[in-house]
């Protein structure tokens, strides 16, 4: 009688364990009963193997110095527009390589978001939600890891290379924490064993003896999960090669541009090729309250070179159609130029871009007004942005997870998918 009232969290936990039980439990597979809709969804999505690379412009890149020029206007700034390979679409002269890739990407020139400072904006542009006291929202990387990740792989499902944002797995839990690579490509603390392999194996064998006994005797879900994450940590030892780009770098230097960001993008490509569903690649810092033009002149060329190289590389390897490349920062920058030749924070009207994974290349969605002060048409909120991204990744943005008893949809309630962007 009462089971119908107690079962919801039971099922969600079982859903989580299902893969583990099948792969690691051996003789203790249990009758898992009816699966929820969410399980079926997660399985279906995984089959499609979609991946995501998030190029994160920390500090907030200027739309005016990148993809939404205002030539001849008081807000236009110092740089000139150049033509792109899409008729009628101009980009900043700092972006000659991307100018030849505009047919591959969709630009959203009508972003309107709700957190104007860095911490809130970074949180927002990683979770789709504003920070609140009582809910720990998960980052997009955790969500993609949950719905597109695989159990039993050597590599983690959520990787950040010079990543930003500390929301991590949020209420999805520690299984979905990011694996964070430093700006220079160093693996996180404790990810490498310094133990001689023969000794490590002996140690492992005696531990495995204990674990097998315990699991066999207790038939315990949590012990299975504990064992599975131990195995994942051990498997990672075999996968360190995937993070080493140095041998390959000479070959790709020209394509990605000889920069730290270029190297990070190459690593991201290697990781998605190896099956990692989500990689964030960060570049810092665009927070150009002073000398906006000098900052962008330094930051944009290596960034756009790497971005263009990444798109080319993904295409050549046949990954482009299954890999979504997001380009965004946490905020945009003010139309007016301040007395230090800087631009300040602005979220009323700004620009992001998407590519791959079924996004319509060559498209410009929405528009800002002639000086860039406001969205002229088709505003896109943070919720709409993330809903569209999840849709492109074949994850239903209305899917809910529980925090306590509160169901939280992946994209905030009321968000709409910008279907025009997706083919």
């Amino acid at each position: 009688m009462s089971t119908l009232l107690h079962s919801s969290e039971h099922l969600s936990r079982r859903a989580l364990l299902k893969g583990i039980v099948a792969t690691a439990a051996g003789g203790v597979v249990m009758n898992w009963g009816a699966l929820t809709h969410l399980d079926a969804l997660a399985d279906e999505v995984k089959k499609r193997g979609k991946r995501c690379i998030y190029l994160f412009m920390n500090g907030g890149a200027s739309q005016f110095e990148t993809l939404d020029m205002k030539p001849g206007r008081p807000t236009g700034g110092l740089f000139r527009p150049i033509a792109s390979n899409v008729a009628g679409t101009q980009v900043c002269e700092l972006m000659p390589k991307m100018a030849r890739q505009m047919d591959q990407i969709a630009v959203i020139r009508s972003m309107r978001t709700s957190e104007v400072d860095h911490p809130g904006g970074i949180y927002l542009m990683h979770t789709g939600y504003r920070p609140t006291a009582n809910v720990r929202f998960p980052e997009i990387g955790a969500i993609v890891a949950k719905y597109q990740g695989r159990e039993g792989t050597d590599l983690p499902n959520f990787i950040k290379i010079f990543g930003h944002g500390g929301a991590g797995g949020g209420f999805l839990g520690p299984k979905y924490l990011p694996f964070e690579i430093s700006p220079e490509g160093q693996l996180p603390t404790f990810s490498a064993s310094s133990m001689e392999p023969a000794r490590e194996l002996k140690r492992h064998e005696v531990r495995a003896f204990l674990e097998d006994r315990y699991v066999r005797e207790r038939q315990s879900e949590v012990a299975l999960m504990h064992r599975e994450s131990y195995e994942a940590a051990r498997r990672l030892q075999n996968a360190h090669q995937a993070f080493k780009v140095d041998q390959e770098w000479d070959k790709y230097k020209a394509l990605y541009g000889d920069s730290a960001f270029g190297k990070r993008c190459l690593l991201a490509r290697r990781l998605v090729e190896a099956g990692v569903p989500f990689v964030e690649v960060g570049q810092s810092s665009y927070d150009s309250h002073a000398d906006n033009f000098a900052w962008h002149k330094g930051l944009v060329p290596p960034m756009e070179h790497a971005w263009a190289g990444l798109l080319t590389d993904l295409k050549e390897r046949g990954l482009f159609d299954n890999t979504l490349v997001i380009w965004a920062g946490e905020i945009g920058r003010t139309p007016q130029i301040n007395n230090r030749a800087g631009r300040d924070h602005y979220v009323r009207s700004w620009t992001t871009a998407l590519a791959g994974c079924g996004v319509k290349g060559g498209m410009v969605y929405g528009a800002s007004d002639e000086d860039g002060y406001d969205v002229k048409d088709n505003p896109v909120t943070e919720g709409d942005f993330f809903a569209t991204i999840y849709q492109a990744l074949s994850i239903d943005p209305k899917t809910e997870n529980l925090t306590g008893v509160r169901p939280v949809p992946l994209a905030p309630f009321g968000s709409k998918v910008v279907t025009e962007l997706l083919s």
Partner: protein
Amino acid sequence: MKTLLAKPFRSPVVARGGCLRAFLRRAASGFALMAMAFAIMLAMMLGVVAGPLAGGARTAGADERPLRDVIDAELSLGWQREKVEPAAAATDAEFLRRVSLDLTGVVPTYDETVAHLNDQAADKRARLIERLFNDPRFARHQADLWDLILFGRHPPGYDTDKRDGIQRWLRDQFTANRPYDQWVRELLRAEGNSVEQGPPMYYVQYRNQPEDLTEVVTQTFLGVQLQCARCHDHPFESWKQLDFYGVAGFFARLQVVDVGKKDGLTMFAVGEKSTGDVLFTGPAKEQMPGKKGEPVKPKFLLGEALAEPALPEGFKEPKLENNKPPPAPQFSRKDQFADWATRPDNPFFARAVANRVWAQYFGRGLVHPVDNMSPSNVPSHPALLDALAKWLVEHQFDLKGYMRELVSSRSYALSSRGKTGEASPLWFQHARTRPLSAEELAESWRVATGYDDANKDKPAEKKPNRFRPLTDGYMLRFFGQPTNGVGDFQGGLAEHLFLNNGQLGSVIVSAPGSLLATLAKPDQPWEARVDRLFLQMLNRPPETDERDRFVALLAAEKDPAERLRDAIWALMTCSEFRFNH
């Protein structure tokens, strides 16, 4: 009046116009109906509790069975009805480790283990339980549990990570075994400051955020979840938005002030103004810029609006300033809430804590999650929950006495070896398996490896790191919150990278007194040394195959130090150590 509230209540803006009057009237009459229905339902749920609660005294000729027997009888009825088979009784070793961790947050020592296992007396478990209750670590462990309930690992608000004051205050409450209703009342009244007294720190988390505070106060102490009603009437419970804002009204006048520094910590005090109201403008999705709201008076859940004395003629609100203790308000709404919430006849309070503390020992609440005691989330064992709440009220919220009944029941002492695979089965037919907290792990590692024994003669540091010799930041990051959004354990890669490649070597010391030093002495045969290894680390002797396996590993080496380290590491990191079971 307007200034205080304009900011925290961003969406329900400033009150004036009459456009919402009609809405409010509608909502109010609708509410009355729903409240009646809910009250009837609640009366039914309360059942046995209602009698003694209303009477306020113990009923003559009431059921005098010890609560532990009631627990066993009620759970047993559930097993029969649901046709599930209870697990066998836990062994002495299993019980010893389980109850030690549950009451004091640390595993027993080798000596304690051997003494308990060799004890032949019939009352040895009762004596063990009393010893643990009298251990100073009992209060510390309870304080840890409540610190997590009140603050979590990532409390909102500035400076709320420096909680020495309230943590000490919590320990004091459990050391003195102060009645739960009394200390919660004191916590919610929040007198004094956050460093010298402690309680104000609870509100510091939600400074200028009375809505967030409303969500957590009702959820934590009453098991009532109102957060849905913050933006719209609850979709399937009877809570209306006006219930939410009615509670928020008790907290809307609070203001956190900084009253100086002590020991390098900022002392916060909680002031309360005498004016200001919550402004309510209807459902969040109908909010429009510039829409005016109506002031909402404080109202008790399922109860009356607060009766407030009028302000004296010509009252002028004194300024709350930093570095000055805030003046007392003319009439404290917060204190009214604190008194109402903790009254024995409060319809939620006793049940909420009975259920929460039950879950600490039995893995899940009789209502689960423990903080959602709504009519649509019925208890698995309604009569038992009634009995637990009744017991607490009749025993003046004696938490230690309550815990004694729980851990003395036969049900608590079942084995955790079950057939369902679940960590916490719905019918409690086997004991639950829970992960050790970061604090429990660090201290238990030190006890199990003999780190503490080896270091006992060293002068204590002035403010020792709870996680020594491990880094607190790592321990909290990797073990601080090992659960998902619904509280279930979730393994993570990072935890094992730390266990495999991190700092555990620093706990496995070789100084005299340590387990490593003891085991390295060749004066005992390997069999005896492996017995010692298991008794000290897992609080049980090894099974035959385990002894053989470990003897084979260790005896094969001329210099076994490295193998010994590996054996100790394996026992530190295995599931049997990681969980309380």
